[in-house]
């Protein structure tokens, strides 16, 4: 799989550990899809919406699509609001609906029912992914989902199957079955992973990959390895700089040469660390990898995001180590 093939799928989930740049990668993926002329809905699930800031766009109300950039709309999804929207669709009597929303029982039920919010969130995503306009054309070419961090993200992906199994008949069973069908359909869906090439993020990514493949049986897409260091520096030059600093009689010169050496040493150490953990990742995960660079910036903004999208588009996916068992 490469980016071209990824963009044949409609639902693109971007998952990973907190703090690895999941939102950034999801935004870059949306920019690249938009550049290819596809219409994209980028959904942020549960929590502080960060995409509006990165894309320099307006913040919309929960569950409302807001045009952010050419071909890109943004939506913040939250379970309780999604449930209200869903009930509005299935209970057409307005007076009854208002009574329901006002009742304390309803609020207890929403707060208490395990998994309900997760289920409604996935339901809303399904609705957007399958949505057609009046002419019968798809509303969105791609729905990109910036999923919650690993543990919570898995909880969301698990919920439809759990609901399908817990409710053996009825509406919930039927709806949950449709969600499971979408999430497990390799023609429509790809679950992408984002990680940095560091020890703990790699451990979590491997765990998540196994859960996706072995428990959830969901089709995987691309593995984005983010924030890779590679300054292309040589250790021998660090030695030379240090030696020159020792020889220098000028305080400013000595201080600067030492600082340049120190930063080179840091970059070399990061590069080595990234290389080691990236190899571990490639050995344990049977997904094509897209390498993304660490982008230095005083403030990471839209310019950096666009650079990242360009690097994503230019990256060649490296084939996974073993291809056995691929679906």
């Amino acid at each position, binding site marked *: 799989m490469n980016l071209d093939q990824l963009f044949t799928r409609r639902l693109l989930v971007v998952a990973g*550990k907190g703090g690895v740049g999941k939102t950034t990668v999801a935004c870059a993926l949306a920019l690249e899809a938009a550049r290819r002329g596809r219409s994209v809905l980028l959904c942020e699930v549960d929590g502080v919406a960060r995409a509006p800031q990165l894309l320099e766009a307006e913040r919309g109300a929960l569950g409302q699509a807001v045009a952010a950039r050419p071909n890109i709309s943004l939506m913040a999804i939250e379970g309780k609001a999604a449930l209200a929207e869903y009930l509005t669709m299935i209970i057409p009597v307005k007076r009854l609906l208002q009574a329901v929303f006002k009742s304390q029982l309803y609020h207890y039920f929403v*707060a208490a029912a395990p998994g309900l919010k997760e289920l409604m969130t996935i339901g809303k995503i399904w609705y957007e992914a399958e949505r057609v306009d009046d002419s019968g054309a798809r509303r969105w070419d791609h729905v990109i989902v910036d999923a919650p961090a690993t543990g919570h993200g898995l909880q969301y992906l698990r919920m439809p199957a*759990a609901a399908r199994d817990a409710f*053996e008949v009825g509406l919930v069973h039927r709806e949950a079955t449709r969600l499971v069908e979408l999430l497990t359909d390799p023609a429509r869906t790809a679950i992408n992973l984002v990680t940095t090439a560091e020890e703990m993020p790699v451990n979590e990514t491997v765990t998540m990959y196994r859960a996706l493949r072995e428990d959830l049986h969901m089709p995987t897409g691309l593995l984005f390895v983010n924030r890779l260091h590679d*300054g292309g520096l040589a250790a021998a030059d660090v030695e030379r700089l240090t030696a020159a600093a020792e020889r220098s009689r000028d305080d400013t010169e000595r201080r*600067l040469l030492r600082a340049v050496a120190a*930063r080179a040493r840091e970059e070399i150490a990061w590069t080595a660390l990234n290389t080691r953990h990236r190899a571990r990742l490639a050995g344990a995960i049977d997904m094509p990898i897209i390498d993304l660079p660490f982008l230095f910036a005083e403030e990471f903004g839209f310019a950096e995001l666009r650079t990242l999208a360009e690097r994503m588009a230019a990256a060649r996916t490296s084939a996974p180590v073993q291809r056995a068992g691929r679906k």
Partner: protein
Amino acid sequence: MKTIAEVVARHNVVVCAGSGGVGKTTTAAALAVHGALQGRRTMVLTIDPARRLADALGLRALGNEAHVVPLPGPGSLEAMMLDQKGAWDALVEHYAPSADVCQRILANRFYQHLSESFAGSQEYMAIEQLAELQASGRYDLIVVDTPPTRHALDFLDAPKRIAAFLDRGVIRWFIKPYFSAGWTTLRVVNRAAGSLLRRLEEATGVTALVEISDFFNSMSGLFDGFEQRVKSVDKLLRARSTAFVLVATPEAQVLDEAEEFGRNLAELTIPLRAMVFNRVHHEAATDLRRLDEEWLRGLVAGAVRGRERAGRLVDNFLRYEMQARGDHLRMEAFRRQLPGRPAVAMVPNFEEDLHDVAGLRRMLPHLLAA
């Protein structure tokens, strides 16, 4: 209290909070190592499902039981990871009036889903566990690692929300009429509720509702005195002997979340005792605006005898300087808006993950410095 060393020394419970991926677990582990090295009987409790603490302490598997971490010196260090599912079961086993009721609850499918996925249950069980450890009197210092701040208020509100969920009045209102008097009564009591439940019954199939009813029936009466317990747990979080430590990195998005957490604490009138910035780039060595770049390129080229390699070295240096400048500007702005005067520590960007006790000890000088 000017340093984190003082904050740790003067409190019995230290709660580390922050976004995911900021080094919260590592920070909690390092603070616990410090406490133990100071001669205190220390426990570090993590509820992180990714088992990062296990990695950080070089332990293969942390169970619901305390593991002793070998350390030199007079103090002691134990580590524990909360197994959420096991903790709920333990709670039910503890409170169930009879073995029969206990079995019925454990076998209930609704309960099984609940104990695995009820939002806030993880947070609540952590606090419950914390209260139990504290009550045992076996520790002088308990360091707690928390779930990510996206759910900050979830953590602090967990006791109240669980109490509301298990409120007997609510349970009776919600489900009991369904059993005892049937639908008609319920409809009379609350028209909207009746319609909603009827709708739900059609939607879900009766079996699920029966299980939910059965669950609530078994649960009601189970948690006699639970409210009392929730109150005492809430008191522990607000006690003077408990300190909150906020952990962040200098990234803009992380700081936004940290700011929100700080506000939440202030609203709950819980003081923030300390602030830890992890993965801080070194202090900028130069004022980039005043630096003569060409002169530096010449200087470095002379040192390494090659203009092209020198160019790469200087570019690298300038990139790091720019990054460092951004980090420090953001941290300064963040510190200015922090309420109160928490102790602040800056921990550098270690090029290696800290995954054993020796590594954690390397972190300590930075963490404890003024």
